[in-house]
């Protein structure tokens, strides 16, 4: 206790120096915590936003192979799938069904390519919460031929809510078809991916693709606890395997160029790229009937190379952390060397009065520890304040990074490990920085120390 009082007093004797060194520690902790929090929030927001846009955290896609050998993206009978979902006991918030095609939109002499996702607008579609409309409204989707198009597509077509557009598409068997859609609304493009998709009624999309009205091409499962996606997917995979033929999981994105090319081919729509991949996979081997594949939102984010983006942010955070740590360690060593020089005679006096070598060393290390604790506490509090203030900022849906935000606000998620790890590293570095001067101070002979002249 006596040492702690002494250490406090010593730190108070050089307030400016202590403030600067503690401030450096606090700043390092603040920056690293803020960046980690931003990366954590980004991952969570992207997952949540994409899940709502795509209608699930877990997806089941089906490919039916007909007697002719032709493969068709189709789920006609989902009873077995529903039973498997029930078997798996995963926490389901909602189940969505969708059908998708990529079509060329025509309006007067303008054209634009756009993926069209057919969903069920009746009831509380998760899309309603996520999609921000520039023109028109969701009421227009009561029209079976209604469609919500992205802002960039609308601009390219020079079309607006209330217009009728023609869409050239191919049926599931590759036949040419032309569909007429009534633009019910124009939505803000959600950023990252240009004109992510247009949304229409599933029954009408099915009719254009020559699919049965109640069929779908994908079942999406929204979970009550999205953070558990991979665990829930593993449970569901086991349950599905017992009831249907499940294809191996989606290959992980390995080549940026290959994935980029796939996405370009499919109008930047990751579901189109995944479906093309599934069609290739389902073509292997002689079989009849339907094969299914389970994928997760993480597979899609992988296709969009978003984990790489988050990895890059974490990498930047790590580099900043290293630079700050170097500054801290140099600062601590220099500070305690100066302290040693300034207090040599004082150390001699304390040693002459009976303080042991270990006591001198402990005093130095205690000062360093108190400095670190004060700096770390200030850094964490500062990071908390900065994150709170930043999360109060509000961005419009036109913001390019809107998909990274939570309802238009930046959000931060810091895991305990992301707090503890930098604290441990900074703490150890601070103590190591103080260790050498402390050892030298402890090694001083009282006579030499008392005779020292500064």
């Amino acid at each position: 206790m006596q040492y702690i009082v002494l250490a406090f007093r010593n730190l108070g004797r050089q307030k400016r120096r202590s403030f600067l060194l503690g401030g450096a520690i606090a700043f390092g902790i603040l920056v690293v915590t803020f960046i980690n929090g931003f990366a954590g929030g980004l991952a969570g927001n992207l997952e949540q936003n994409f899940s709502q846009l795509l209608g699930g955290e877990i997806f089941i896609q089906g490919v039916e192979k007909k007697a002719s050998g032709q493969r068709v993206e189709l789920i006609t009978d989902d009873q077995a799938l529903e039973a498997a979902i029930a078997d798996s006991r995963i926490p389901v918030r909602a189940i969505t069904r969708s059908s998708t095609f990529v079509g060329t939109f025509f309006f007067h002499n303008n054209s634009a390519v756009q993926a069209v996702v057919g969903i069920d607008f009746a009831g509380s579609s998760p899309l309603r919460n996520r999609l921000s409309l520039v023109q028109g409204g969701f009421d227009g989707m009561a029209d079976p031929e209604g469609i919500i198009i992205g802002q960039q597509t609308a601009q390219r077509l020079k079309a607006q809510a209330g217009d009728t557009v023609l869409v050239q598409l191919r049926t599931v068997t590759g036949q040419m078809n032309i569909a007429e859609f009534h633009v019910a609304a124009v939505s803000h493009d959600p950023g990252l991916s240009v004109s992510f998709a247009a949304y229409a009624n599933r029954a009408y999309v099915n009719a254009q693709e020559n699919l049965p009205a109640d069929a779908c091409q994908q079942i999406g499962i929204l979970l009550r606890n999205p953070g558990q996606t991979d665990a829930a997917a593993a449970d569901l995979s086991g349950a599905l395997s017992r009831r249907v033929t499940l294809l191996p999981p989606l290959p992980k994105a390995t080549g940026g160029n290959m994935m980029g090319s796939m996405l370009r081919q499919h109008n930047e729509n990751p579901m189109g790229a995944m479906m093309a991949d599934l069609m290739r996979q389902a073509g292997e081997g002689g079989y009849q009937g339907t094969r299914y594949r389970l994928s997760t939102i993480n597979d899609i984010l992988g296709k969009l190379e978003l984990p790489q983006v988050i990895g890059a942010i974490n990498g930047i955070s790590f580099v900043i952390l290293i630079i700050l740590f170097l500054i801290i360690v140099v600062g601590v060593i220099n500070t305690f060397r100066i302290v040693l020089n300034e207090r040599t005679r004082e150390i001699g006096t304390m040693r002459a009065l009976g303080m042991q070598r270990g006591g001198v060393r402990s005093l130095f290390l205690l000062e360093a520890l108190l400095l670190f604790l004060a700096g770390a506490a200030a850094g964490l509090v500062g990071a908390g304040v900065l994150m709170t203030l930043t999360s109060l900022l509000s961005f419009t849906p036109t913001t390019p990074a809107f998909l990274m935000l939570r309802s238009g606000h930046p959000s931060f998620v810091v895991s305990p490990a992301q707090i503890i790890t930098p604290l441990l590293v900074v703490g150890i570095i601070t103590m190591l920085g103080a260790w050498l001067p402390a050892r030298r101070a402890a090694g001083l002979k009282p006579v030499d120390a008392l005779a020292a002249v500064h």
Partner: protein
Amino acid sequence: MKAFMKRFAGMSILFLALGVPALWAGPDQPDVAALLQRLDGMTNFTGDFTAEYTEISQHPGQQPAVYRHDVYRRDRDGAMTIIMRFPDAQKGQGYLEVDNNFWFYDPESRLFSHASLKQSWQNTEAVNSDFFRTTWAKDYAVESWSEGTLGIYPVYVVSVKGTNDQVTFPFKKIWVRKDIGLLLKAEDYSLSRRLMRTVYYPQYLQVGDHYVANRMLIVDNLNVGAKTELTIADVSTAPLPDYTFTKAFLQQVNR
């Protein structure tokens, strides 16, 4: 007597309803199913076929684009090979239809990938199947027909419907010359029966017993102003080595 008159009137109406069209259809009515078979027979070769195809594609607000490629066909086997010659950026790219699989070969990556005969040909109004043998009799059934004239030619105007869900265009309307049975014009309709494109066949080249439309004009009815003119030159029916219809041929062409 009244009852007899009623029965007579009823019989007369039935006769008029059923009998007159039958009489009218009588000996002059063409066998339209045979007409489709004849179309196939006239344009599909029993031996091999080679030609150089050139497309000039025009889209509103864009410079015309030119594509040139060689087509090798063995219609009896349903085989076809296409080698791109122009533009230089696509030179050496190849397509192979064999065993009901359509492959695309990219000489840069040296990889083959699946393609479809139903896909559009480059950035033109043509589709890949426009270069392939015709399958009118197998893939289409007559819905209705009438007589008319197209230019100076008396023609049969025949509406056909796809017999399966594999044909690129589910509905077509064709203008066929009455005298020699050549196709002069075709309108291609979508599944929703919207007119998508119109193809004109203004010029034919006779090669033995067969005919090749050596000029075609394809007009996009959806993207107004977009059209593609297709010309065929250097037609040959000399036998081709079997090797021509293999993946190895596409690879070897690029060495």
